């Protein structure tokens, strides 16, 4: 029961995480979807929510199998030793993965390694260990299921069915001195999981924002009612962004043009309601207004299927440059935004100009843009 829920949570978390990774680091075959515009809000919100759900589920699962850890003799054969080693790796990886994932949403990094790499590769350790674990335990799982169907058959004949004691988790077995019934334990874990998910998912989903007690982010907060991930001060761009001689350079091959802010504002402006959704799980809907990227690229005669490189005034790091595949550069809702919620962009939101595209991770919505080029 717990194993099934935890396996499901881990699998969903893995798949949504993999999707996020592929969006940021796309292979050649990657299919980019720009609709629904809230696609990444959903996938990343679910990623963080299932990650948080797996905190109580993992704790409960490990608690229920804890007596297995103390079983004697500890090692019976080489195969047994290998199995126990693989379980130790599975458990340790799961604990670390869930912990660093949670702390990452706080922007807290108290560890001596790269979050992005380790979180990604540990995910492969976990999903591989999960598949292996299911393969090894399949007879047990099937026995459990067939026993349940036997129970169902018996229950159909008799009124009360058979006692559930046979399939209890190891730690709930009668006689181990614990005061839990199987049903009570599962109910409490379900309730706890529900509470932590509902009390945090409001950072990702507007309809839950009223219950947001324990998430690191609040909707509708920050300058212009939109949270930020990286301030202008953190990025060290304030002077360059506020400089009166700022111009945007647009280029395609040998054709190059520059635009002042006034010239950009004189181009046709479009306004769209688009969410910004961060890899850390928070998201925020907002009204963005600015120039369509495809209009901007047409001014330098760029081909319609142009792939773009966007450069920020922030130098280096993951935020310094972003790559924009044609699916986004062609989309009518992909803007070089100059305004947010009816006002010029706040400096922390990327003044004088930033990218906003439908269905992309926030880290790729480059702020403080100064160059857009066809590559």
């Amino acid at each position, binding site marked *: 029961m717990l194993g099934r829920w935890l396996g499901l949570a881990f699998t969903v978390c893995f798949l949504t995480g993999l999707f996020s990774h592929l969006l940021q680091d796309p292979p050649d075959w990657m299919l980019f979807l720009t609709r629904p515009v809230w696609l990444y809000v959903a996938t990343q919100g679910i990623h963080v929510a299932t990650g948080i759900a797996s905190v109580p589920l993992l704790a409960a699962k490990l608690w229920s199998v804890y007596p297995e850890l103390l079983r004697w003799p500890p090692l019976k054969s080489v195969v047994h030793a290998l199995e126990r080693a693989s379980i130790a*790796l599975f458990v340790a990886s799961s604990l670390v993965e869930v912990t660093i994932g949670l702390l990452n949403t706080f922007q807290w990094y108290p560890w001596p*390694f790269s979050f992005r790499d380790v979180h990604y590769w540990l995910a492969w350790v976990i999903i591989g260990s999960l598949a292996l674990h299911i393969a090894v335990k399949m007879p047990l799982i099937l026995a459990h299921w067939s026993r349940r169907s036997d129970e169902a058959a018996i229950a159909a004949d008799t009124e009360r069915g058979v006692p559930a004691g046979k399939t209890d988790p190891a730690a709930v077995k009668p006689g181990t001195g614990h005061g839990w019934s199987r049903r009570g334990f599962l109910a409490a874990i379900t309730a706890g999981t529900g509470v932590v998910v509902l009390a945090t998912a409001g950072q990702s989903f507007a309809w839950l924002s009223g219950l947001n007690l324990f998430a690191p982010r609040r909707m509708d*907060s920050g300058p212009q009612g939109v949270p930020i991930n990286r301030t202008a001060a953190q990025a060290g761009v304030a002077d360059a962004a506020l400089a009166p001689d700022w111009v945007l350079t647009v280029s395609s091959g040998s054709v190059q043009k520059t635009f002042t802010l006034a010239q950009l504002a004189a181009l046709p402006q479009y306004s769209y309601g688009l969410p910004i959704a961060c890899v850390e799980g928070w998201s925020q809907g907002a009204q963005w207004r600015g120039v369509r990227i495809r209009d901007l690229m047409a001014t330098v005669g760029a081909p319609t299927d142009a792939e773009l490189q966007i450069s920020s005034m922030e130098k280096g790091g993951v935020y310094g440059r972003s790559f924009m595949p044609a699916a986004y550069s062609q989309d009518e809702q992909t803007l070089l935004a100059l305004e947010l919620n009816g006002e010029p962009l706040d400096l922390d939101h990327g003044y004088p100009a930033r990218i906003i595209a439908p269905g992309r991770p926030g880290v790729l919505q480059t702020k403080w843009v100064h160059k857009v080029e066809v590559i």
Partner: protein
Amino acid sequence: MRLPLVTPSAPGEHRTVWWVRAALGALGLAALGYAVFGFLANVPPMQLIGVAAWLAVALLVHDGVLVPLTTLAGGGLSRLTYGLGPVQQEIVRGALLVGAVVTLVAAPLIRAQQVLQPGGQGSGANGTVLQGDYTLALGVFWLVLAVAAAVVVAAVGLYGRRSKVRKTRF
């Protein structure tokens, strides 16, 4: 150890199970191999040592400290709630478990606030992260939980007594 025996209802089903197991096992090993390759190719050796240390400490802290402590707490609870009926004991236990789970998720938030907020590590602290009063929220949550659990325990007690009375009457 009780052997996990499958009762093969048909030889065909048995073979399917074998293939599914083999495929899952092979996929699992492939993913693990890919992960090992990924770690070695992308993570510098010093960082790998850090990862190994975190894995080891996670296992030690969880299996060596957290589980024994919660088990002890569970045993102590059984003594404290000795006078209550089994359903009431379960409610107290369940409420404490829910509270513990919420605390487990909220405590790192409070700690992160303490570590990251004062003075703002690095320049230009970001005011839109960790902005809630999580200590207050956690306190209120525990209070509401305690009151709710007490009300339910009392209600169960009353109901139980009334049904006992009814039993003696009829």
